């Protein structure tokens, strides 16, 4: 039993070590280092040896010294003798090993004898593996987007693996792609259009949604239950079904290629979820406040503006941010309704740019960075509000 646990522990930990070292090697390759082999066997043998030695030594030496000794041995053997790579790469390897030894330090022979110890070890390492794996898989495309926007066409073609940026060059050539898309491709205008459309959608949606949500939350009227259930059904209806009839109607009314047309469609498609989110919140506001207001002879307009809105600022902001994000990211309707470059939104403009095979990829990526940054910034900054919006508006695809 003990040997089986011991073998499993060493195996799992060395696979984990292989995984983190491989990620580091990939990142190093992308900085222009010439690494053509992962040397998996060597790392595996080291992993097994270190895990085993760590168990044997236990707490006889202080963790700090133990980690440094193991890491140095690994760095000297793997990095300096076999691969002969620059110092910064080896410092990275050193830190990884330091982290690794610290992680496996909490296991000892006594631990391994406990019930279910292999499963506990497996879950522990799976969590660590997951954190690294998902961070890498998710952040890598974003990282690539950003780096590519700073490269030149030739550099991209000569070595697609070279992700290093030359910070020695002056700012103008570093940000060249951004200057070009603003000067020759008119991106300033698209940013303005996208902003007007998104902010406009937020404002109109709120103006329409707040009274409706208040009525559904508070007032008794015929058709109320029907209305509140149909909100969700309507929201589930996909945009692709609306595209052809709306295209035909808008063509005949001359609303295509106009910001007004987009505003109307975006508002209508975000209204159901906005009402749904708001009415849920309005219901949680104590009724006594309104009853007092009715005694003071406040009209419904007064109740909404003086009581409901001030009390539900958090809910309103999360609706606003959520709607902003939907409108900013929207692509299908802007593809259908806009074919005049003068009225493009950012998403549509990027798609239009990519339609031309001649367009250098770094311009496309610079455009992508511009369209992504505001959303990610808003998301990180207002995460608390947005997460509640995402959960409530989860039906949005």
């Amino acid at each position, binding site marked *: 039993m003990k040997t089986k646990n011991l073998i499993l522990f060493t195996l799992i930990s060395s696979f984990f070590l292989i995984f983190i070292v491989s990620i580091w090697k990939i990142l190093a390759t992308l900085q222009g280092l010439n690494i*053509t*082999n992962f040397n998996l066997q060597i790392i595996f043998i080291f992993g097994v040896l270190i895990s085993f030695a760590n168990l044997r030594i236990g707490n006889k030496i202080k963790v700090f010294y133990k980690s440094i000794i193991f890491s140095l041995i690994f760095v000297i053997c793997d990095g300096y003798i076999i691969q002969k790579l620059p110092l910064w790469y080896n410092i990275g390897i050193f830190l990884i090993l330091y982290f690794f030894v610290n992680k496996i330090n909490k296991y000892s022979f006594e631990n391994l004898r406990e019930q*279910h110890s292999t*499963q506990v070890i497996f*879950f522990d390492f799976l*969590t660590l593996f*997951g*954190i690294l794996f*998902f*961070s890498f898989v*998710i952040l890598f*495309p*974003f990282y*690539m*987007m950003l780096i590519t926007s700073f490269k030149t066409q030739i550099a991209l073609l000569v070595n*697609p*693996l070279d992700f290093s940026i030359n910070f020695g060059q002056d700012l103008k050539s570093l940000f060249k792609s951004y200057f070009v898309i603003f000067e020759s491709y008119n991106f300033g205008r698209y940013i303005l259009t996208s902003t007007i459309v998104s902010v406009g959608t937020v404002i109109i949606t709120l103006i*329409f949604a707040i*009274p*409706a949500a208040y009525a559904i939350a508070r*007032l008794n*009227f*015929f058709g109320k239950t029907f*209305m509140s259930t149909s909100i969700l*059904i*309507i929201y589930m*209806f*996909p*945009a*692709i*079904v*609306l*595209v*052809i*009839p*709306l*295209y*035909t*109607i808008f063509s*005949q009314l001359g609303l295509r290629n106009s910001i007004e047309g987009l505003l109307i*469609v975006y508002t209508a498609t975000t*209204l*159901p979820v906005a*009402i749904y989110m708001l009415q849920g919140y309005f219901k949680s506001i104590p009724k006594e406040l309104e009853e007092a207001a009715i005694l003071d002879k406040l009209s419904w307009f007064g109740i909404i503006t003086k009581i409901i809105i001030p009390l539900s600022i958090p809910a309103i902001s999360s609706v606003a941010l959520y709607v902003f994000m939907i409108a900013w990211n929207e*692509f*299908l309707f802007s593809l259908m309704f806009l074919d005049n470059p003068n009225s493009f939104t950012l998403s549509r403009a990027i798609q239009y740019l*990519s339609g031309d095979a001649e367009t250098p*990829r770094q311009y*496309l*990526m610079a455009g*992508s960075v511009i*369209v*992504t940054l505001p*959303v990610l910034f808003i*998301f990180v900054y207002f995460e608390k509000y*947005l997460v509640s919006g*995402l*959960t409530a508006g*989860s039906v949005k*695809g």
Partner: protein
Amino acid sequence: MKDTLANTEKKTAYILTLPAVALVFAIILFPIFANVWISFKEVKLKDIRIPEPRAKKIIKYISEDPSKIKILYKLRNSSLLQEIREVSFQDKFPKNFEIEKLDPRCEFKKYALNCKFGNWPAKYKENFQVIFETNDGSKVDKKVLKSTKPKLDGTSDNILLNTNFTLKNFKKVLFDNEFVDLLLTTFYYTFFGTVGSIIFGILTAQMVNQKFYGRTFMRSVLLFPYVAPVVALAYTWELLLDPNSGTLNSLLINYQVIETPINLLGQKYIEINVLGFDFKLRLALTTVIMFEIWRYFPLAFLFILARLQAIPKELYEAADVDGASPFQKFFNITLPQITAVISILFMIRFIWNFNKFEDVFLLTGGASGTRTLPINVYQQGFSISDIGMGSAVSMVIVVLLLIFMFFYFKLLGKRVDEN
């Protein structure tokens, strides 16, 4: 007294909800009915443009006399197919203008030229010419003349409003050789995308539900693919997977995993040998599904995490006392607690993935075996320019969707009953 109060309440409620209801009706419900209507008609993209009478104004001096001017109106019917009836024309002129010869169809009154041109057949063209001179002999200013534009008006039949219906579109859609393949592709895309994103959602939620350094940061990062604009993400992936200069292929070649680059988005099938069995994998479709999972697992993550955090700690403590292993705890406590969320998520994601258009459109445009139903709507309607066919395909989507929704709300109703 009470009755009137209830009445005012009702009235207020209707006033408050009316704008929202009207807008949703006009933009969402009405188009769905319009879609049914169009799907039974033979309408091409070029038919939906309303025929317009148009005039181009060209101004020329006659000989050396600066007080005389010739105006040429190039009149035409913008439609190549339809007639315009009772075309009327109006153009305004400065006060000192006098017309030299009046066309019998026109009259000149109050400094305005009004004409009735009658009916214009399709493709109609005419060069209509008028000569003016100033009554005080002063020089004619071209710019002033150019600044006013003629107004034309006319009535025409609208192909969308007549009552000629046909079943042709549906026959074409349903009896098309590729229809089964289309349904299968859509189903693979939807099903595997949904299942994959839920599995990844469970894994990540389980992961973030533990305490570790940088947990809040991790939670934000996990949501990045879901909140970032699809256009940016799709093109980044395209660049990443590009066979010629893509990072992924270059990396794999660099580490000698593969010898020649793989066109992950442009190759329909790839031969794979598993345990001695050769089988064909739909490569481009798999890649597109991967993108879909990558982009939408955050939603599953968010839902499942919220549910996990609501599971009472006592359950796990009791399991610890009984000496349950981590696997047992996961399968006997965690999983039963999250099945309800998972089933709801499955339905929601299934319905939405079924209608997903942007992702596939931006990555492959529906080529190399990735043509799903929504892509087909676009291709029929706008690439082949057959609006009627596009509508018919989207009707197929609506019908399938209604079936899914029926099950979804049945499930939802059951769940509400349970609580």
